[in-house]
């Protein structure tokens, strides 16, 4: 028996030491990925996998500022509607052809017409105006254009012109997954894995890695993405050495893994945050900014996060919409965040003329965090004399109900990390809540009207301050999901990015 174990151990060690295993990264995913044609879909997992194959004109650096990637630079016309982009020379597709301006123009045009985020840019047309020069014509100035061209999630990755044109509005078939990335497509075996293989002719940028920008390098021979829906299995798989990396380990398992020397914990660098929207269209909260401030003043986010998340390492009561270190981080207005001051709230409510009218808070139980936070808020608001009635429905019903202004006064949802404030749901005038005050529109025009980064970050600071003054939405706080990795894996990043990438990673 002992001898058998020993023998097994030796065989296992031999297997582990064999070069094939050592050069394959085995990544346990939550599910089977949808199509990897990521121009067409916004599934996180598809972006995570496909970013190794497909690249973009720009890429975000560590501070989330877009840097030239397949591009080398741009010139912008006076009216901000024409952008001429110079392309990097010597970039090769996986099929051996060199990347030209035609490929870029075709990819951008397909994305603008059919892509899931294609309408956001307002691209009228993209034309090849030279062998390595593309000219974009926008319908209106769009300050966030560079971020759009750098965001892989449903974004304009570059395909060969014939692939992009042939596919049109249909998703690209796996055999046509041809990009310029450090890994090329290997094979998809349903329910087993998606395999990417190192691309030997990759045209690396000669610069150090900086976030997603800079020189990417494939150090693994193969990347395998293996669907393992059960979180317990993902965790024990990494502990047993079956996987090198496992995504989305649930918060209640944090206690079990944080002190385990057999795993590395990779807390997300891209926090998700809870949001509670207020109805700006109908009902008692419409235009009553003082009452909204009363609601905000009564809330203690620390309590809500403690109850809904538990582990102190996995949440942070932070009023800024972007985390520290991010170019969009700002503290404007955040002094009103998480005051938890029932007396101040009572005074404000009295000033607002609040008469005890019940305020309908729409929340779903499908996300435990939503419900926990709403429960704590209801209690805190009651302590401040504000009468909240929880309306508990399932998520699908909530999505329908919140489209009907008369059905709710507040609703709870959450928001993923995004590269540019323009993608915040509250910035969208037609998103439920329908916040479209004159002040907002004036600031938003200033914000989107230029691509000058400094002007834009300044305008965003003012917008955030306005959010804390008019309170169209209340930010609950940052919640950090976490992944785990085998101790041997070294990655070029500390906290897991929204889409973990493995160029520059090795073991």
């Amino acid at each position, binding site marked *: 028996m002992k001898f058998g174990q020993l023998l097994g151990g030796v065989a296992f060690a031999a297997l582990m030491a064999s070069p094939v295993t050592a050069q394959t990264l085995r990544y346990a995913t939550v599910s089977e990925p949808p199509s990897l044609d990521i121009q067409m879909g916004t599934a996180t997992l598809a972006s995570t996998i496909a970013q190794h194959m497909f690249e973009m004109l720009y890429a975000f650096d560590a501070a989330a500022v877009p840097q030239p990637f397949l591009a080398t630079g741009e010139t912008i016309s006076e009216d901000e509607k024409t952008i001429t982009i110079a392309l990097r020379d010597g970039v090769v597709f996986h099929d051996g052809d060199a990347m030209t301006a035609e490929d870029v123009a075709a990819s951008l045009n397909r994305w603008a017409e059919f892509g899931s985020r294609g309408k956001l840019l307002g691209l009228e047309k993209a034309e090849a105006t030279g062998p390595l020069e593309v000219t974009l014509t926008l319908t209106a100035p769009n300050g966030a254009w560079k971020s759009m061209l750098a965001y892989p999630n449903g974004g304009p990755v570059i395909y060969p012109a014939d692939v992009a044109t042939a596919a049109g509005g249909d998703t690209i078939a796996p055999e046509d997954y041809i990009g310029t990335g450090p890994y090329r497509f290997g094979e998809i075996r349903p329910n087993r894995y998606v395999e990417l293989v190192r691309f030997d002719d990759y045209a690396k940028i000669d610069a150090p890695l900086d976030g997603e920008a800079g020189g990417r390098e494939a150090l693994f021979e193969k990347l395998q993405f293996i669907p393992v829906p059960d979180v317990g299995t993902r965790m024990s798989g990494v502990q047993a050495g079956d996987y090198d990396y496992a995504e989305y380990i649930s918060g209640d398992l944090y206690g079990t893994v944080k002190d385990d020397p057999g795993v590395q914990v990779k807390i997300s660098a891209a926090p998700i945050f809870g949001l509670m929207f207020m109805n700006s269209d109908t009902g008692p909260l419409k235009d009553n900014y003082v009452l909204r401030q009363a609601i905000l003043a009564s809330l203690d986010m620390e309590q809500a996060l403690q109850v809904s998340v*538990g582990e102190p390492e996995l949440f942070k009561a932070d009023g800024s919409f972007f985390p520290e270190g991010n170019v969009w981080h700002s503290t404007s207005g955040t002094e009103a965040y998480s005051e938890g001051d029932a007396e101040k709230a009572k005074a404000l409510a009295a000033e607002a003329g609040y008469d005890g009218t019940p305020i309908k808070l729409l929340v779903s139980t499908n996300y435990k965090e939503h419900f926990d936070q709403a429960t*704590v808020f209801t*209690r805190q608001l009651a302590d401040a004399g504000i009468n909240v009635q929880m309306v508990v429905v399932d998520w699908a019903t909530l999505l329908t109900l919140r489209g009907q202004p008369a059905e709710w006064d507040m609703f709870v949802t959450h928001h993923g990390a995004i590269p540019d404030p323009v993608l915040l749901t509250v910035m969208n005038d037609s998103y439920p809540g329908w916040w479209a005050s004159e002040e907002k529109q004036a600031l938003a025009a200033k914000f989107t009207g230029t691509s000058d980064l400094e002007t834009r970050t300044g305008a965003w600071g003012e917008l955030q301050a306005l959010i804390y003054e008019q309170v169209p939405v209340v930010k609950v706080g940052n919640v950090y999901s976490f992944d785990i990795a085998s101790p041997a894996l070294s990655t070029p990043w500390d906290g897991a990015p929204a889409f973990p990438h493995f160029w520059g990673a090795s073991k």
Partner: protein
Amino acid sequence: MIRQLHALVGPVLARPLTALGAAFLMLIVLGAVFAPLIAPFPPDAIDPVNRLLPPGGAHLMGTDHFGRDTFSRVVYGARLALLIGVGVVAFALASGVPIGVLSALYPRLGRVLMRMVDVLMSFPSLLLALGLIVILGQGVFNAILAIGLIYLTTTARIVYGVALRLRAEPYVEAARSMGAGTWWVVTRHILPNMISPLMVQASFVFAFAQLGAAALDFLGLGAPPDVPSWGNMLAESRIYITRASWLLLWPGLMIVLTAFSLNLVGDWLRDRMDPRFRDMVRK
């Protein structure tokens, strides 16, 4: 008076387990009625600093992840258990009895009604309840309706069977041949004879309503999650199973003991009822 009381209590005491069950049910009723006096804390008082405390001290049964007192919530949970039980039984009887009796009296109508009952019975009961809740929306009343619908069918079938047999009894036939009206037959002969099978059925329905409601709560489709029901308490504390297993113990025990006591009482009632109908009231 005392002898009457003795006649009623005596047989219960002869079955000690049943007596215990009956006593437990009394306790539940008292707890439900006097919940605000018994519970040391309001059931929804949040105290995040003292979350997930083990039993002991000020918190007899510990606290949940909001820091709410488990004992107080268990006491208030008795209210919901009673409400659901009474509601489901009332619904099942109020709908099942007329359907069963009418079907027995008017065979042509009966064929249609009983066919409809068959259609309902061909649905998997839990899925039927789930579907109804999703359509009607979540709520205590809707949970009662959804569970009640399941027992409408069984109640209607039992009543139908009993009524058919009663209708064929010589004295009922005689009454009819002497020109007694349908109403008279129903109120004088059928309904009074049906009381004991209905009581047995009611106690079993009451017991299973507890389990059904708990299952719905657990799936997140029963009583709204802010209501302190035993099922909701289990559903909420599920993820703390390894860290705070006592959170699962108390509400679960309450459900088991309530259902068990009701089953004991139901069994006892059945043993005392008319043997002609005993076979019909099977669970």
